[in-house]
């Protein structure tokens, strides 16, 4: 592990040099909110925010992504035969991803990179990307990363972690990919200031005011939790709008749709959401998750129980707090997790008795 110091006045110049070898992405303020986008020539990421409104998951899992293409023109020899669309596989770097969002890529990877099947679109993008993280010194009141397997200086999923030292950045190179990026940017000034990282981390963690309780989830019976009495109350105000799933960095569910213009067609992958009734409806009209309560329960059970049991890698949440901040009816995953975590199946029996 190497530390390098980057004088802020050399920051833009370094990124410009790196842009020769990488396609650069970073947070930029749009009309209303910051969002991750491809940086134009000379453009630098903007850090006057805590985090982007939408998570950067779209960098690996675009909201709509063309996968296959075909022609319906029967005069062509290859009509109706599908082919994978050509993709830009040149290296790219994401500058300024927050540690929570970087950790989320590892949780999503469990879904798209399995021993049996690999999603070449997600995994291809992941493998081509270098993640340069920006440590989080001013967490929000809705952030709870430190109790969600993560933290403001968390390093998992990052190739380099950068912290703000006022007039300079201090960067910790974590992987070979990170080293290659530092070389391309010309960031070589070795620093010996590990203590700065330690104190920055301690200070940021001390600023965290919010937490999530998850310690009993793994040991609580799945079907008992599924049948718990609180789901109607939790779902009561839900609009099934899907904001929580679309803003979540770890939500990965998708739809596959065909789109045809004239005789040229594409098959694409689009974000989908367990909040939408059509997500599960059968052609017969039968819907296994027909009610709002069933759909809300699916979202929280997936994140806080099914995922926990299936992968034994903690909860499917990194504590970024986006769903808490953006839910129009204030449904709060911390409150739901507390109900699930403190649920004693015996209590339910006692009530029934």
């Amino acid at each position: 592990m190497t530390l390098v110091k980057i004088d802020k006045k050399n920051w833009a110049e370094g990124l410009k040099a790196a842009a020769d070898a990488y396609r650069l992405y970073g947070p930029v303020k749009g009309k209303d909110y910051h969002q991750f986008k491809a940086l134009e020539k000379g453009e630098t990421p903007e850090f006057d925010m805590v985090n982007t409104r939408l998570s950067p998951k779209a960098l690996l899992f675009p909201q709509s992504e063309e996968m296959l293409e075909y022609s319906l023109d029967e005069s062509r020899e290859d009509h109706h035969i599908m082919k994978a669309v050509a993709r830009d596989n040149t290296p790219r770097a994401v500058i300024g991803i927050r540690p929570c969002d970087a950790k989320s890529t590892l949780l999503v990877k469990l879904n798209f990179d399995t021993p049996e099947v690999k999603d070449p679109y997600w995994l291809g993008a992941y493998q081509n990307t270098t993640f340069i993280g920006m440590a989080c010194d001013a967490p929000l009141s809705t952030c709870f990363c430190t109790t969600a397997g993560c933290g403001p200086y968390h390093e998992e999923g990052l190739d380099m972690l950068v912290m703000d030292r006022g007039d300079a950045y201090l960067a910790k190179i974590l992987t070979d990919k990170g080293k290659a990026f530092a070389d391309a940017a010309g960031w070589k000034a070795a620093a010996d200031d590990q203590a700065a990282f330690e104190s920055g981390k301690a200070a940021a963690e001390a600023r965290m005011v919010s937490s999530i309780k998850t310690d009993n989830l793994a040991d609580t019976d799945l079907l008992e939790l599924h049948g718990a009495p609180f789901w109607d109350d939790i779902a009561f105000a839900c609009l099934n709008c899907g904001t929580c799933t679309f803003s979540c960095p770890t939500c990965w569910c998708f739809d596959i749709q065909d789109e045809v213009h004239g005789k040229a067609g594409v098959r694409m992958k689009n974000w989908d959401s367990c909040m939408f009734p059509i997500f599960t409806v059968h052609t017969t009209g039968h819907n296994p998750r027909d009610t709002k309560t069933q759909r809300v329960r699916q979202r929280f059970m997936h994140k806080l129980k099914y995922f926990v049991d299936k992968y034994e890698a903690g909860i499917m949440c990194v504590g970024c707090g986006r769903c808490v901040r953006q839910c129009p009816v204030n449904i709060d995953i911390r409150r739901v997790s507390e109900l699930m975590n403190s649920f004693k199946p015996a209590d339910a029996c006692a009530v029934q008795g």
Partner: protein
Amino acid sequence: MQNPYLPYPVRIDDITVEAEDKSLKTFTFVFLNEGDEEKFAYQAGQFAELSIPGKGEIPIGIASSPVEKGFVKFTVNRAGVVTTHLHNMKVGDIMGLRGPLGNCYPWEALEGKNVLIVGGGFAFTTLRSSIVYMLDPANRPKFGNIDVVYGARSPGMLLYKNELVEWEKRDDINMHITVDATSDPDWKYNVGFVPPITEQKAPPGGDDTYAIVCGPPIMIKFTQPVLEKLGYAHDHIIMSLENRMKCGFGMCGRCGIGKELVCKDGPVFTLDQINKTPREY
């Protein structure tokens, strides 16, 4: 990296209308590219995505059997956008086939055992695949008694009628064909719903006997208590589930029943396994 979303190109080689109301057709496909058939190696009980460019995909159980070579067959009920389009396609048309997907019936566990097959309506497809597989001369000695209870609404709605007649004549498989009702005076098989016919005809359960059940929800609902009464334990009752699917290999998230995914961890489960899920199917 293998692209699991990319279907094998296939040509429709034959279309057979199966049901008197024309709602069911069997499509026989041949692979356009040499080697693809070998890559598509499957076992009875698995399914595949029939993939129509411009329309979409539909997960359908494989009706042909691994012992049948040179083609794959699917019997499709006309129901939604993709299946309606497929019903209007013709021999020679080009489309895609993606798979095989999901698990199969537990053929290793079934070896040396008696097998009871209970099927209803057009859910008989992977059961046909299984019967053809077990009756293959190389495989028949591996199994004990084979009993089949198969019912449809009327004689004209039974699938694979020619094969049913052939199987009736054999002495190494006990066929119990039934229809809900018929006005045909020459009907020489059973009349009645699948559950009571199962109760009358099926062999008793036990350690050495497994039941494979595939049919509409109402049939399954009333067959389960019958099998329990006959002595079938829940881990000896094998079922194939259906749910809305897209990817078919466990990534798109919609077919989950708790932590299991119907497409990848199933579609074949024992009743014992299903009892441990929230049963959201």
